[in-house]
């Protein structure tokens, strides 16, 4: 049985509520707390404390009885999540059986319901968007115009980078602006060779080391990165940025944070008289009690699909179609980058060279398509290439080596040829029909309607994938690689785990959900700064942009509150 808590309303009232403790929610909580606001951070899953709740972080390969194979039960229970997790990081993924959703078309929705969310398992790539991206919708008419330009977010990118610590190399490119970087990670022999070849063959292309939130020196009492490449288990050295290692402890240190795990937000509550949000309704997953919490401002950072679900589930006479959804755009324009197409090859040079340590990142070839008008490639927008070089080791060799016995063993245990694998991370256009809806005929174990995801890549993305195959193959051929094979994995939507776009920013309340400060057009004290806000996807890994927009919106919200505007 569930019942409404009768605690006094005063006890349950805060200055600000933040829904979700992942990469953007952690930032919102930290910034609001630092501005002196008493902040309630709600997380639907369990708590994960930095260092102490990383049970596999120090394990050796032989500590896993079944290696890195998932069990049959794992795969049956978690048909989606088990594609991403291994026994080493399974505890940072949800169980699909416990958290079902409906796939109208195949869509992988990877989730971690715990404090820190996917900031524990993220890929840590940190790239700025540029005006090529912010101006793209206006220019080619897809989606709606971004209400901001690069100059609006530039200082906030710097602010975010300086806090989290990003290692990287400045390259002075207009399509990929430089940021505030710690010393870069290093390219290995084959990557340097490919870099030189690309530079020689095409003046518009270059290969640079990935820009990542892995620390190349001590930063903010964390790190440096020890080059173990076991990041997704949680880092015992604090070698990379996560909510758990950084923003949540910083928020806690202000004395202004109340962190409440096991709290599923089902609705944002609307105050008809004041015409703004008054708080949220929460199910406590331990007691099954329903609570209401109240605040002057609400930040929604539940991740784009879940955020859309909360808005759509928050109906009132003012908002019969969902909270702040007068535009009917909430849940629509769902995007995910495609990262299916690319090429690989082997190289016979540098046979006497190797490396030591496991660098937790690869390289980047920044966008080189459609930088100028009239390139006539048959698709709009662009992609960047991410990849890595390495020497073949046992797991790469096992299928190719014939025979068995002494010679087999000797070949298996020595470094093989250098190889490079690289693929295009491509922009996905915002399509109204790619959407998240609620199915009220099916409920989860808390009686909440299931989310239904209807998503597909279209012609523009498919043509881009063909171009990625061709250009990747070409770059490797020109650099003297042999056995160059191009590929398209035709991965399912959601596979890149860059979902975004379901509550987009825009100038016009009739066609967008949020304004230029991530503030809801129709409820001024609600801010949405997770991936939902994205008006276009660009091709850059998006987390850094979410962090910068969150910091910017948090400061704006706190100022507006002080001015009495909220």
């Amino acid at each position, binding site marked *: 049985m569930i019942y409404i808590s009768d605690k006094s309303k005063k006890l349950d009232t805060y200055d600000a509520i933040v829904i979700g403790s992942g990469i953007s929610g952690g930032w919102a909580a930290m910034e609001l707390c630092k501005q002196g606001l008493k902040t309630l951070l709600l997380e639907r899953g369990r708590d994960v404390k930095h260092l102490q709740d990383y049970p596999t972080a120090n394990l*050796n*390969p*032989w500590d*896993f*009885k*079944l*290696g*890195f*194979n*998932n*069990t*049959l039960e794992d795969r049956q229970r978690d048909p989606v999540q088990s594609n991403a997790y291994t026994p080493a990081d399974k505890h940072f993924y949800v169980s699909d059986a416990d958290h079902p959703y409906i796939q109208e078309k195949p869509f992988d929705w990877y989730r971690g319901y715990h404090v820190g969310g996917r900031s524990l398992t993220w890929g840590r790539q940190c790239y700025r968007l540029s005006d090529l991206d912010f101006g793209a919708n206006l220019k080619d008419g897809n989606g709606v115009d971004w209400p901001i330009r690069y100059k609006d977010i530039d200082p906030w990118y710097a602010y975010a980078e300086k806090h989290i610590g990003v290692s990287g190399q400045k390259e002075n490119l207009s399509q990929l602006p430089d940021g505030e970087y710690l010393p870069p*990670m*290093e*390219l*290995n*022999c084959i990557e*340097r060779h490919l870099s030189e070849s690309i530079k020689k063959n095409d003046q518009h292309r270059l290969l640079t080391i990935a820009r990542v939130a892995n620390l190349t020196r001590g930063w903010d009492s964390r790190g440096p990165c*020890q*080059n*173990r*490449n076991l990041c997704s288990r949680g880092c015992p050295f604090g070698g990379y940025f996560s909510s758990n290692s950084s923003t949540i402890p910083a928020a806690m240190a202000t004395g202004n944070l109340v962190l409440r795990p096991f709290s599923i937000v089902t609705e944002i509550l609307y105050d008809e008289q004041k015409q703004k949000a008054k708080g949220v309704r929460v199910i406590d997953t331990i007691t099954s009690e329903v609570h209401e919490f109240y605040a002057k401002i609400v930040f929604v950072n539940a991740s784009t699909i879940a955020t859309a679900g909360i808005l759509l589930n928050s109906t009132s006479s003012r908002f019969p179609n969902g909270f702040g959804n007068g535009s009917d755009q909430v849940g629509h324009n769902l995007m995910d980058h495609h990262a299916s197409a690319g090429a690989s090859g082997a190289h016979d040079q*540098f*046979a*006497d*060279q*190797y*490396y*030591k*340590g*496991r*660098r937790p990142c690869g390289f980047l070839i920044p966008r080189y398509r459609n930088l100028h008008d009239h390139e006539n490639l048959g698709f709009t927008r662009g992609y960047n290439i991410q990849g890595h070089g*390495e*020497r*073949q*080791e*046992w*797991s790469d060799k*096992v*299928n190719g080596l*014939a*025979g*068995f*016995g*002494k010679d*087999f*063993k*000797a070949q*298996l*245990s*020595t*470094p*093989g040829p250098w190889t490079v694998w690289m693929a295009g991370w491509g922009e996905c256009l915002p399509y109204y029909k790619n959407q998240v809806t609620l199915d009220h005929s099916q409920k989860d174990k808390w009686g909440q309607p299931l989310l239904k995801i209807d998503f597909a890549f279209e012609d523009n993305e498919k043509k881009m994938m063909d171009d990625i195959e061709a250009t990747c193959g070409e770059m490797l051929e020109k650099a003297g690689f042999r056995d160059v094979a191009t590929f398209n994995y035709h991965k399912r939507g959601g596979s890149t785990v860059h979902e975004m776009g379901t509550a987009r920013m825009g100038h016009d309340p009739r066609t967008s959900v949020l304004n230029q400060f991530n503030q809801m057009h129709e409820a001024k004290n609600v801010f949405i700064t997770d991936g939902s806000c994205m008006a276009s996807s660009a091709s850059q890994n998006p987390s850094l942009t979410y962090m910068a927009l969150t910091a910017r919106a948090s400061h704006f919200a706190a100022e507006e509150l002080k001015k009495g505007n909220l």
Partner: protein
Amino acid sequence: MDRRTYLKGIFAAGVLGTASFSLFKWFDLNKPIDASALWDKKALIAEMAEMIIPRTDTPGAKDANVHTYIINVILNCNPVRQQHKFYYGLEDLEKYAQDQYGKDFLKCDASQKQSILEHSAKNAEYSNRILNKINNKLLGQSFFSKLKSLTVEGYCLSMAGATQGLAYDYIPGKFEACIPLKPNQKSWATK
């Protein structure tokens, strides 16, 4: 179904037919495997794993207890059909030993064992080449391919294999991007 897939199907059915594949066996393949029957083959699996990765100046598969790893992974992580395929593979191999040499595989001498495993390896290569994806999808990886890949995996992830058979760097600290290969340098155990 497009024409190519259809033809592949006919081809697969034909080859499987000649490989004395019966309907009975098909139904049987969908029942769960008897775990204790597989554990009973532990010594046989250990012997073959050791032949794949023998003890040299570094530990071999037996030293690394790879047979236990193989059985655990087969039973817990492999689909039922793949489990059966593996088990039948063991039985076929034992039968082949009896047919060829009139004794159990484990009682055969080194050169007999060698030729039995070579026979199995040859069959695997043949079926990998001819049936490849179709066969893998219908029935799982061939017996010998499975045995070999699990032996490698179990060995390279084991303490003996990772730290002595290969080079294991628990906490590298620094990343050194380009360094000269040392004489007899082993490859890294983990990425």
